[in-house]
């Protein structure tokens, strides 16, 4: 039971990363019908921006105001910078080729992925980098034999908060309705007065920005980051997106958390070396059995 609960907490923590990254995939896919293969690398970029800010920038703040203040600044930087990178990516790599169809877009996305990975390597070097222990909180609690760190609680709660915010924006606001309308029928949305370019820019800012937050939280949690980590996390989060049902925001959250739990339980009860196998087994099974994902489409299209 102890192992089960512990792995459940671990699973929810990494599931939060997957969910946040999956949201970016899902949002971009919803509006652009594009699998943004560079999304995992934006996650990695978030890790590195967070690293740079924590180590070089906000250490003074950390020293004077404590670790939480330093983290807040680093996270804000990761959010804004990775969001800006997302906007630049849309402007430079996607907008010029959208008219050419979907395949050129995918190729362009792969190109951005390779570019980002190598840019990170060129800037920060090919070796692993480590977040210093002094920049993250080291508190942990013992709840009836179950060890939960402050970092884990923070990651889970903050991720849930971000997801709730996003859900509110997309489901409850007028602009959110415009986003959903654009995803369903871009031409009709335009005819009703929606500036589709604004919607696209919003999506390409917020999706990557959330991925960036996931990246820095991942760095603070494992404290070790690598320039190539984006690909792996990207694939996992993509699996989470498919598991939940692509293009659907609550589905991406569910898929991410579920995948994290599945992976951690599999690692504990079967073998941690097989962790990735579970993930991709899930991907294959979902694609065969239920390609619309667990949550899937709510109703059939009426002609």
């Amino acid at each position, binding site marked *: 039971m102890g192992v089960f609960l512990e792995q459940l907490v671990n699973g929810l923590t990494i599931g939060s990363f997957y969910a946040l990254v999956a949201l970016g995939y899902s949002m971009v896919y919803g509006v652009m019908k594009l699998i943004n293969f560079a999304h995992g690398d934006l996650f990695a970029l978030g890790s590195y921006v967070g690293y740079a800010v924590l180590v070089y920038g906000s250490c003074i703040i950390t020293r004077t105001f404590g670790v939480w203040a330093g983290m807040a600044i680093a996270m804000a930087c990761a959010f804004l910078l990775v969001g800006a990178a997302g906007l630049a990516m849309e402007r430079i790599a996607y907008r010029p080729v959208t008219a050419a169809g979907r395949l050129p877009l995918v190729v362009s996305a792969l190109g951005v992925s390779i570019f980002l990975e190598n840019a990170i390597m060129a800037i920060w070097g090919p070796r692993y980098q480590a977040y210093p222990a002094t920049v993250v909180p080291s508190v942990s609690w013992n709840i009836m034999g179950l060890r939960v760190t402050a970092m884990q609680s923070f990651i889970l709660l903050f991720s849930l908060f971000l997801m709730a915010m996003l859900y509110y924006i997309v489901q409850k606001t*007028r602009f959110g*309705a*415009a986003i*959903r*309308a654009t995803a*369903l*029928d871009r*031409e*009709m*949305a*335009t*005819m*009703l*007065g*929606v*500036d*589709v370019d604004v919607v696209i820019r919003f999506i390409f800012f917020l999706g990557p920005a959330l991925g960036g937050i996931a990246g820095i939280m991942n760095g603070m949690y494992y404290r070790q980051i690598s320039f190539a980590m984006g690909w792996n996390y990207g694939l996992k989060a993509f699996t989470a997106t498919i598991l939940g049902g692509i293009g659907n925001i609550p589905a991406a959250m569910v898929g991410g958390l579920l995948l994290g739990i599945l992976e951690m339980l599999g690692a504990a009860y079967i073998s941690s070396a097989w962790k990735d196998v579970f993930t991709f087994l899930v991907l294959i099974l979902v694609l065969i059995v239920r390609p619309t994902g667990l949550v899937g*489409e*709510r*109703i*059939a*299209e*009426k002609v």
Partner: protein
Amino acid sequence: MPPILVAEDVRVSYGAVEALKGVSLSLEEGDIVAVLGANGAGKTTLLKAISRILPLTSGVIKFRGEDMRKYPPFRLPSLGLAHVPEGRRIFSTLTVEENLQLGNYGVRDKMTPQDAEREMRRVYELFPILEERKRQLAGTLSGGEQQMLAIGRALVSRPQVMLLDEPSLGLAPLLVQEIFKVIEQIHRERGVSILLVEQNARKSLNVASYGYILETGKVHAEGKAKELASDPHLRAAYLGGAAIKR
């Protein structure tokens, strides 16, 4: 007074295929003008060109005397032009209410919340069934209800000109009656000018004051609706008159 909507020698191509080969028409303020013609004559293309979804290869479209090319397509609703496209194109996974609210997205800066609320109310009065179903997903509505939703969605922006593309397509005869009644009612009560594209020539000429007949991308005939309806050639070709005459 100059016409509220004018198309001058409009040409539109899909790749190498020219769909509109120089079409001119005008819509006077407060009128209903019907655009008739067979499938593929270019009726839908004409409406899409007017609402700037399709680019013109040449020609001009003027709305209240202004060249529309000055404005990006998403600005058209705020100028007073609403397009109810062929196939209704409601957002099926959004609720009925959300669909209607999106209808005034384009005029959100020009309308106070109270005005917007009042326009919603007027649409619900016109189509009570939509109010009953406002929490339902729009995709679960019947074809006729979806058409009402599409028209309602256009009305909440308080348009001056409405482009109506095949509103009776695919509806049962009783509903076709109903839709044409609604068109007349909108015209009478709100003074909206309507450009009506239809297959149902007889009913359209009945509600319209003027008509154009398109054939393979050109205006084949035009005239007062009554004259068109009684023209023996047109009766034979478009109104199924030949069979009745015997």
